């Protein structure tokens, strides 16, 4: 359905997208995972015909989207990263306005608004102005507006940034339903790997304008088949501890997490004794050490040496 070939976008000083290839089949739910500044939003802007690529092409159902933007636009729903709404208008008015720009009217428009409001769970707040909404409610209306015309392909750009857990799980559940029950194709962008893991069949991992890995979740995790992820929980952190761990021949990557450190080591390496020894030497009290099944976050850590967030 969607094919992106060797896409590049150069701005004056930066190359935001540097040779992206991806595809999406009808009915698929595909994740685009990457840290801030990876070039996800820029890629999406080009797919949604708002931004001309420097080079490369984007095909939708076989046709170039820039030559015939009117093929993709009516069947594409994009949830922008920003809250792109009229804050002075109510949720209902926003939906009414955008519904009309998509050519809906009369009873059909009214019914659609009611249906989508129900879906995002804001029926009883529809008469309130958007500016009085909480962050989570704004996000939900931001999504609702993109669903007014029943798009075939829904692209969501970090739709859950900065919201409460309740709104977040509502949104995730909703997206899953749209995909499973309505057969909507979804391109879901996020830097939260849990979301992508939960929602998507296939995942692209993006960094510095490039796709650095892609495949099903299982395929990606098998990248880590020769490594183990070890979580070391500590009482207080210490620079010295990290430095010494880094010097250990079997340790490949280290990243700080809330409760301590995440360490990627060669598969089966018996490093537990060494870890405790190093901890002792640098006077770090260890609360616990766990071997974990790898997550996509670990894949990213492995590929880039960095964590997704920060």
């Amino acid at each position, binding site marked *: 359905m969607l094919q992106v070939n060797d896409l590049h976008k150069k701005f004056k000083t930066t190359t935001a997208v540097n040779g992206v290839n991806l595809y999406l089949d009808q009915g698929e739910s595909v994740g685009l995972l990457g840290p801030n500044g990876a070039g996800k939003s820029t890629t999406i*802007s080009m797919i*949604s*015909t*708002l*931004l*001309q690529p420097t080079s490369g092409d984007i095909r939708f159902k076989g046709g170039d989207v820039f030559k015939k*933007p*009117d093929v993709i*636009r*009516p069947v*594409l729903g*994009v949830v*922008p990263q*920003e*809250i*792109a*709404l*009229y*804050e*002075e*208008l109510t949720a209902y*008015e926003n939906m009414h*306005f*955008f519904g*009309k*720009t*998509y050519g809906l009217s009369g009873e059909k428009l009214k019914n659609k608004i009611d249906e989508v409001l129900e879906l995002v769970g804001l029926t009883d707040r529809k008469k309130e*102005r958007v500016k009085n909404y909480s962050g989570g409610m704004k996000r939900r209306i931001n999504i609702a*507006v993109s669903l007014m*015309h029943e798009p075939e392909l829904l692209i969501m750009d970090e739709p859950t940034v900065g919201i409460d857990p309740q709104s977040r799980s509502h949104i995730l559940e909703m997206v899953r339903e749209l995909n499973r029950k309505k057969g909507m194709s979804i391109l879901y962008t996020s830097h939260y790997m849990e979301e992508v893991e939960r929602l998507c069949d296939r995942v692209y991992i993006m960094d510095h304008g490039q796709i650095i890995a892609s495949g099903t979740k299982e395929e990606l995790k098998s990248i880590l088949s020769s490594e183990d992820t070890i979580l070391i929980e500590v009482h207080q952190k210490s620079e010295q501890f990290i430095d010494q761990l880094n010097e250990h021949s079997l340790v490949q990557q280290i990243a700080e997490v809330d409760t301590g450190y995440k360490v990627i080591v060669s598969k089966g390496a018996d490093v537990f004794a060494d870890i405790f020894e190093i901890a002792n030497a640098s006077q770090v009290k260890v609360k616990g050490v766990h071997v974990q099944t790898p997550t996509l976050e670990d894949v990213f850590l492995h590929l880039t040496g960095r964590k997704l967030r920060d």
Partner: protein
Amino acid sequence: MWNLIRKDFLTISRDRSEVLILLVMPMVLIAILGFALGSIMFGTVDMDPIPVALIIENDLEQDLDHFREDLIAEGLPEQAIEQMIASAGTIDPAASLETVLHSPELSDMIDLKENYDQEQAEAALATDEVLAVITIPEQFSYQTLLAFYLAEETDASIELFVQDHEQIQATIVEGILTSFSDQYNLELSMAFATEGEGVETSISEENFGVINHFSSGKPVSAFQYYTIGMAVMFALYVASTVSSNAFKEKESHVFARLMMTGARPLNYLLSKVVSAVVLTLIQLTILFVTSTLFFQTFTDTGIEFWASLAIISFVFSLVIGGFAAFMTAIAIQFNNDAISGFFSGGAVVIFAFLGGSLSPVEYFSPLMRELGNWTPNGAMMTAYLQLIQGFNLTEFLPMLYRVLLMAVLFITLAVAIFPKRRLM
């Protein structure tokens, strides 16, 4: 399209500060300025005597001879002729006008100058040396007599030329002359009425001493002046309101979202023109109607007045629409709303000043006045004021054309500047 405009209307009308600027502020200023400056406009202030040139080209003796010849040709008996000439001779328009103007009641209001000929007087009028020129033309008595006695059509009239920018003085001179000509007509009728039979029937209903309007009209009251002044000034804010609203759409990414729906960029731009036109019309209607309800600003007017007011307002709203589109195009193309801020923060006041919204252009130099008439608000203010003074549409049509031209120019520039391909 209507959807886009409705949305602009909703978003702008819900912004309390916009409503304050577009409607409340002008209304408050109309009230303040109208009450504070009312007395000045009505001319109760001390005034120097008005310099008036009086030119008498009429020669009573000669006209009487001329009239006698006509009567002889008509074949009237000689005695009747002489009687008629005698009574006609007692009414000398020039003398009576001089008497009136020199009268003690008027002597401290009028500074009469009688040593000019027509040409000199017109030159003096142009340089403001005199503010009015009254001419009793050649054969005035003769023409009058013909009309009265022989009931012939004539164009006998005392001519008055006044400086149009000295409203109060012009009005005073005009008033004096009107009452004089009424009196003269009355005297003339009486003189002939006592003549006996046949004469009454030949007295025409026509009035003489008709005032030739040079460029003067009815006076403008302070409330009328400042209602127009504030209306044209604050209508300018509609343009910056619409363009900064458009920029907000761009900044909050709704513009990009809108473009993704397949909306055409030029349609969007056009919707800004129409939005500004509609908002301006609503604003002007509210201001004019409210001002009339509270201050009786335009009460003694007819349907024709309101129709002309609507036409001027519509033309005005078009230029506001054009300007709104122009600023929208700049703000969106350069991704910077400095233009709206610059316009509403400073340029409006300069425009308003030049256009005469803040103080009457009468106090300006001719160059400044001309400059003011090249601002859209100044040109429209001139048109509105001319309408109030009783001129008809054809006389301020040039101003309307000028403003229409500006509107077309702004829209053309806006279309040229507005990005047609880059959508975010």
